[in-house]
């Protein structure tokens, strides 16, 4: 059903392109040549647990030889549950990096969800859409007993079936520690027959600015489940020693004390003497005045 819709859309687009080509060949307006840039939409589905998913679309347009992320474009999202007819679930506008995302609650009964993100196109950028299909699944991460070198965590993956959630074997999982600018991958592994995995995080890793380790387990674009993610906070064993900024150094705002003392002593001495000399100059004047007064009195 949905694929039919898409193929219909494709036909329309193809026909329009042919028309455009003819129009161009007829040289009606050379400007139309550059009027539209081909767009490319990609879509990723991340399952957050609790039946919630986050759909993130990236919209880029071809400029020159490369695809450039486009900001401020409206993306519509659709879902088709268990091959039931597609419904629109919302829309979002792309940010400056070209991303647009919405959240969606799964109903907890359907077995598969086919998502579609669509950009309708405008005067300058052509339309495009992207699809992805997932089966509900849950990724959990829990504290396990640490060993002498590592923090350890139990990771469990369960997928939705007609019998409810069951552990899933052989899913590649990556474990990251969140850092300021990007995440540090510390562990990769695959779930066992019980859907479990013991993940290790180096114990000597310092915490972040909040003095915590924010640990994230991820499954990336699994064929069946899409992307999964779960995180846990942990107190780090080590924390960087913050060497306090010296209060007074050559490069700080405030000067070293010896410098201040030297300055005041030197300047005080010299200007003190200047003051004394100035007083002498005043004295010269008053000496004469006294002399004159004396002579007047006499």
């Amino acid at each position, binding site marked *: 059903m949905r694929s039919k819709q898409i193929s219909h859309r494709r036909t329309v687009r193809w026909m329009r392109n042919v028309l455009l080509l003819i129009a161009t060949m007829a040289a009606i307006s050379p400007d139309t040549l550059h009027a539209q840039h081909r767009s490319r939409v990609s879509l990723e589905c991340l399952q957050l647990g609790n039946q919630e998913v986050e759909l993130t679309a990236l919209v880029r347009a071809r400029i020159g030889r490369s695809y450039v992320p486009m900001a401020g474009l409206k993306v519509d999202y659709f879902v088709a549950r268990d091959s039931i007819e597609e419904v629109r679930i919302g829309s979002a506008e792309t940010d400056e990096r070209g991303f647009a995302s919405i959240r969606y609650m799964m109903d907890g009964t359907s077995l598969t969800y086919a998502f579609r993100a669509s950009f309708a196109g405008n005067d300058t950028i052509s339309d495009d859409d992207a699809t992805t299909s997932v089966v509900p699944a849950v990724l959990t991460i829990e504290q396990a007993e640490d060993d002498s070198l590592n923090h350890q965590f139990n990771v469990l993956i369960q997928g939705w079936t007609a019998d409810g959630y069951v552990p899933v074997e052989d899913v590649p999982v990556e474990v990251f520690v969140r850092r300021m600018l990007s995440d540090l991958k510390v562990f990769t592994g695959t779930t066992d027959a019980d859907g479990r995995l013991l993940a290790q995080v180096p114990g000597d890793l310092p915490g972040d600015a909040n003095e915590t380790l924010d640990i994230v387990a991820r499954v990336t674009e699994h064929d069946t489940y899409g992307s999964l993610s779960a995180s846990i906070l942990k107190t780090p064993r080590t924390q960087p020693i913050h060497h306090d900024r010296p209060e007074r150094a*050559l490069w700080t705002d405030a000067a070293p004390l010896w410098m201040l003392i030297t300055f005041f002593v030197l300047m005080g001495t010299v200007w003190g003497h200047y003051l004394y*000399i100035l007083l002498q100059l005043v*004295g*010269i004047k008053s*000496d*004469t005045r006294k002399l004159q007064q004396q002579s007047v009195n006499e």
Partner: protein
Amino acid sequence: MRIAESSIALLREFAPQLERTSLAARIWIAFLVLLILFGGVGLYFQVKYGHAVTGMRDHVVWGIYIANFIFFIGISYAGAVISGILHLLKVEWRKPFIRLAELITVIATIVGPVFILLCVGRLDRLHHLIIYPRLQSPITWDVLAISTYLVGSILLLYLALIRDFAIYRDTDVLKVAKWKRKLYRILALGYQDLPRQRLRIKTSIDLLAVMIIPLAIVVHSVLSWIFGMTLRPGWHSTIFGPYFVMAAIYSGTGVLIIAMWIFRRIYNLQEYITEKHFTYVGYMLLALAAGYGYFTFSEYLTSWYGSEHWESQVLDKLFSFSEYGAAFLFANVAGIILPIIVVAVRRLRKPGYLALVSAIMVLALWVKRYLIIVPTLESPLIPMQETRPEYVDYAITWVEWSLTLGGLATFLLLFTLASKFVTVVPVSEILKKP
């Protein structure tokens, strides 16, 4: 106030200079004003179009302005140290030319800092030096030291002038304009040559003479530390302080000899500034040349012997005749060896030769200052690989020349004007021979 016979006689000789300005002097002053105006044009261009009109660029961030600055502050040593030392040692023969020396000090200390201001990109923000001061910066040290030094040398000059002003005020030999006489009266502070007043002046001068020497040393050391405190070859040297101090006293003495010679001729002071004076100052020049030469030798020998890579980059430039070789040779031959020879050979030890060699030496020392600044800045640690030729080699532009000439003209003009206002020989101190 009772005025000594000798002072009146002396004043009679100076009276024409103080009373009116001759045609030659007028032309001279007009010429200087013209040069200053030329400097003004340069300044206008520099303020309007930014420092791009100078030869300075990102590598050579300082050029002849800084060389001029060091040069003038160096000259200012003439008064400070020479008058200070000679006063303390109670050297009698200092008296005829001590005022000249002190005038040089004050005027050069006023003109010198102008050149550092010309290096400043935002003159409109100069007050930031006061509202956001940082004591760690050698520039702050410089501002403090130079202003203190200027006040000290003005005081020293003025203290010695008070008695002269009193004489100018009370004498009937001098027929000067009313405003001048009024000014003399104010500046004389009612001085009546009372024993008490005499004592006040004596203590003050004694104090200042003691203070001005360390002050001058501090000023020039601090100046050298602008360079010495950086991590640059040819600058980052522990002897830079004393080296600059020595060079300063040396060039100051040279300028003093030139001034003595000029004023001796213009004002016919052969009677007061005698050949003997030239001989004595010549001996000082010889000693200073030797000291300065020793420092120079020590500085270059050390870095050449160590042959550290970055250091050698600068030395290679100085020793290579395709770059600064000729200038380096001139700076050292004309700046050290020539004066020594002239003073050492009795037949050459004459006022004329001494003044001539001093002039050459002073020029050589200016070149030397240039050689301290520019080759170092042209030798960065990281290769330039620069496509813009004006960024690679420093070339002095007409704006910089105009302001340099303007500064020199200001120095000469202030000197000329000062000599129209006060006698260049202290009339109160000299006892005219019968």
